[in-house]
């Protein structure tokens, strides 16, 4: 940990970073802020690893022939890319870093309800991550991150058990984080912090935590069954002894579709904070945005069958899943419209976090709308398991979630570390990320409708031009992600001192010092007003 370089330049106010510099003070900390930093470092490492896998894949796909790696290596690359990015980056990303840091601060609490469980969740996450990485190091896994049976249970000769165990273990970290947030939000709000005054970031995390708590055990059971099947051949998924491989898909997607909302809901929470701050406006339709988070969490549990329209599941079941998938699009649309309406009559500025918020709205809109294509069953039959699906979920998860994560990181960085990053570079890299992202993934929509299947090591020559674009875009995207990595580290030492509230934002986290003291507030804040009280309280104008 780099905190060993002791540079107490001035007599700094005691804060959570400078209270102790020893490594034990980090590895045995129960301070939610320090645990957030531990997560921040770990998920950045996993993001880097997952990104390298992606880069190698995109390099292979420059040419139609599978000439850089052999098929097995390529298959392991996309499997490890998926496993690492989904289970060890996207799912913990915002909740475990920004959420960990901010949930107690935003509600005026000293820490999460169970600080030691919070630390435990990080250790569990690391152990799970080490299992996944050791699977990669020993020789990899080639089942795809979806672990479909019977390929994973019977036919694959790779390290399925090790990787699956990693996913199984890390799930408990997710459950514990969710549990901690739910209890904290219920029991530890400061006086006056009513449910109707909670920042939407908190509502989004509350909804996310519900899914983590209720959904993750299902994937744990599924993976346990998969391991049983693989080791003892119990026959749950094996048709030759009366099992059903499709059952695995039902169980898997029962968690893994809601998991998409674990990934995107916290991002939506971040955007609500950013749009209000940089429009200097209260949020438009607070209740609707809050309720839509819960709505997404609930309906999100009922749409899993849309991953299985071509498997041979009952057509009537497909019909119901299709309908519910359209239904879940409504609360997402509500959010997008409300964010847009929030700017109305505002005083909009374009600092880096806001640029990322714009990027999020744009890319999430495209990701959401292409989701409608996949809910439309006849179209899904053609594009499922093609690059169309790959493009769609990257628009939601990278275009949506990672943009929100980057926006949030830039927004709260001065709070977390007390220093500013260079704004010019930050704006530039936001632009690079946006352009690189679109160049990478937009051509994949075209590829998908043309019929290029996903997970193809070699492909038909007529698909090459779009793959070249995609690889070029991925290169730009890689640069776009590297620049922040550099200036963030640089800013820790050389950045301008930020002050307590550089954005002049509302929210309790901005009322304390930067970096915050160990217990967040010198005395427990008392809340007397709604969230996002940026505007003057005149008469209500629209309605």
């Amino acid at each position, binding site marked *: 940990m780099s905190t060993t370089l002791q540079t107490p330049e001035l007599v700094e106010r005691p804060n959570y970073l400078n209270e102790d510099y020893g490594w034990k003070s980090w590895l045995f900390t129960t301070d939610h802020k320090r645990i957030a930093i531990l997560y921040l470092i770990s998920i950045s490492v996993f993001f880097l690893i997952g990104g390298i896998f992606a880069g190698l894949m995109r390099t292979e796909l420059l040419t139609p022939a599978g000439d850089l790696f052999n098929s097995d290596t390529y*298959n392991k690359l996309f499997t490890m890319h998926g496993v690492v990015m989904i289970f060890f980056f996207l799912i913990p990303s915002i909740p475990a870093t920004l959420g960990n840091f901010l949930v107690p601060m935003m509600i005026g609490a000293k820490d999460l309800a169970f600080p030691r469980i919070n630390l435990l969740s990080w250790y569990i996450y690391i152990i799970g991550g080490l299992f996944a990485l050791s699977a990669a190091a020993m020789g990899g896994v080639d089942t795809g991150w979806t672990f479909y049976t019977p390929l994973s249970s019977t036919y694959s000769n790779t390290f399925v058990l090790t990787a699956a165990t990693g996913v199984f273990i890390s799930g408990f970290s997710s459950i514990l984080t969710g549990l901690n947030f739910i209890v904290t939000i219920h029991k530890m709000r400061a006086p006056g912090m009513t449910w109707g005054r909670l920042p939407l970031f908190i509502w989004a995390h509350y909804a996310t935590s519900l899914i983590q708590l209720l959904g993750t055990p299902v994937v744990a059971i599924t993976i346990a069954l998969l391991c049983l099947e693989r080791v003892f051949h119990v026959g749950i998924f094996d048709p030759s002894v009366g099992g059903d491989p499709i059952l695995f898909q039902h169980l898997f997607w029962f968690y893994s579709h809601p998991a998409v909302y674990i990934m995107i809901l916290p991002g939506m929470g971040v955007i609500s904070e950013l749009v209000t701050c940089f429009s200097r406006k209260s949020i438009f339709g607070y209740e609707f945005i809050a309720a839509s988070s819960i709505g997404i969490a609930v309906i999100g549990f009922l749409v899993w069958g849309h991953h299985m329209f071509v498997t041979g599941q009952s057509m009537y079941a497909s019909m119901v899943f299709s309908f519910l998938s359209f239904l879940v699009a409504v609360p997402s649309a509500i959010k997008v419209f409300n964010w*847009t309406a929030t*700017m109305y009559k505002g005083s909009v500025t374009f600092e880096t976090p806001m640029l990322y918020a714009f990027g999020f709205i744009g890319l999430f809109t495209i990701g959401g709308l292409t989701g409608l294509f996949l*809910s439309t069953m006849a*179209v899904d039959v053609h594009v499922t398991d093609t690059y169309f699906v790959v493009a769609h979920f990257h628009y939601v998860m990278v275009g949506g979630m990672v943009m929100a994560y980057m926006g949030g990181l830039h927004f709260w960085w001065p709070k977390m570390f007390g220093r500013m990053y260079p704004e010019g570079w930050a704006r530039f890299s936001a632009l690079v990320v946006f352009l690189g992202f679109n160049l990478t993934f937009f051509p994949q929509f075209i590829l998908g409708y*043309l*019929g290029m299947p996903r997970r193809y090591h070699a492909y038909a020559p007529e698909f090459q031009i779009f793959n070249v674009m995609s690889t070029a875009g991925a290169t730009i995207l890689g640069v776009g992600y590297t620049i922040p990595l550099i200036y963030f580290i640089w800013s820790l030492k050389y950045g301008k001192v930020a002050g307590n509230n550089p954005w002049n934002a509302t929210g309790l986290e901005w009322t304390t010092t930067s970096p915050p003291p160990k217990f967040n507030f010198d005395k427990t804040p008392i809340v007397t007003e709604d969230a996002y009280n940026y505007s003057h309280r005149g008469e209500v*104008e629209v309605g």
Partner: protein
Amino acid sequence: MFLSLDIPLWPEAASTNAAEVDLLYIFLIVVSVIMTAVIFLGVFIFAMKFRKKDPKYVPPHIHGSNLLEIGWSVAPFLVMLVMFVWGTKLYFDEYTIPATNDAIDVYVVGKQWMWKVQYPEGQREINELHVPVGRKVRLTMASEDVIHSFFIPAFRMKRDVVPGHYNTTWFEATKPGRYHLFCAEYCGTEHSGMIGWVTVMEPAAYENWLSGGGAEGSMASQGEKMFQQLGCSTCHLLDEQGRCPILRGVYGSRVLLEGGKTVIADESYIRESILTPNAKIVAGFKADVMPTFQGQVSEETVLQLIAYIKSLAPKTTNLITGAAASVPGMTTIPGRPGANSQNVRRDTTKTDGKQ
């Protein structure tokens, strides 16, 4: 310019279904472009118009608007309902197997990493599929190992091929040519090599092609050979002691099982009875009489056996699918007049009492 560079922007459309799916896809694109434009322009105009000008300006507090919220929830939802109904209708058309008599049946087995195709007439091919223009082709598909997915982009047609049961689908090609056949469900090492070509031919050329192969005889006759070879015929055709049900005419009929349930003797049921004979015992017979053939016969052979058993049935029923539960409208298969006698042993000495 794009054309001269030969950049494909739209896949070839070569089936009746392709044209329909394309139309729906275009509708979705139009709606999406409009929605994207509304949101992008909204964001852009608001950001520009309301950008910070006067540092002293404090924006008004606007709580929200129920009317607007309802509007922008309901309006998109109504548009989505159109997508839902349209997409569902096409989906049902796509996966409802037509029962016409002039359709061609083709049997597909997916296997790591190849497609094996056989025709009732006896032709067999690997990673190739020959079909005529203008006739419906019904596919019955089985997997020898993992899940595969049979995907012909030019037909906008895809169906998973799942071990353990038959999945079915159909198409009608409209344009002669050669089109990609892909495996779309990741199936292991050489997944991206599990590809082939679909050749759509003029009817005359197809008939010509069809008559050129099949040296080993029709699927049914190959099935008959296997039926003898595996010893099935001893019990299931010639038996006089009543140890097993006689299979003549069983295909397509409704069979009464031990315990009172009934099952339609379709392809899936016959397959199951060959591979796991004890799964569904016909009423009046004992379990554990028949050995399992799991692991001893390939999916291709099972399909041949079924073709043979089918040929023992009266020609009237035209049941093709194993996915009976997922085919709307296929509630009951009219049993043959004597279907009930299927449930009872042919052995006349003992059954009289039950009748």
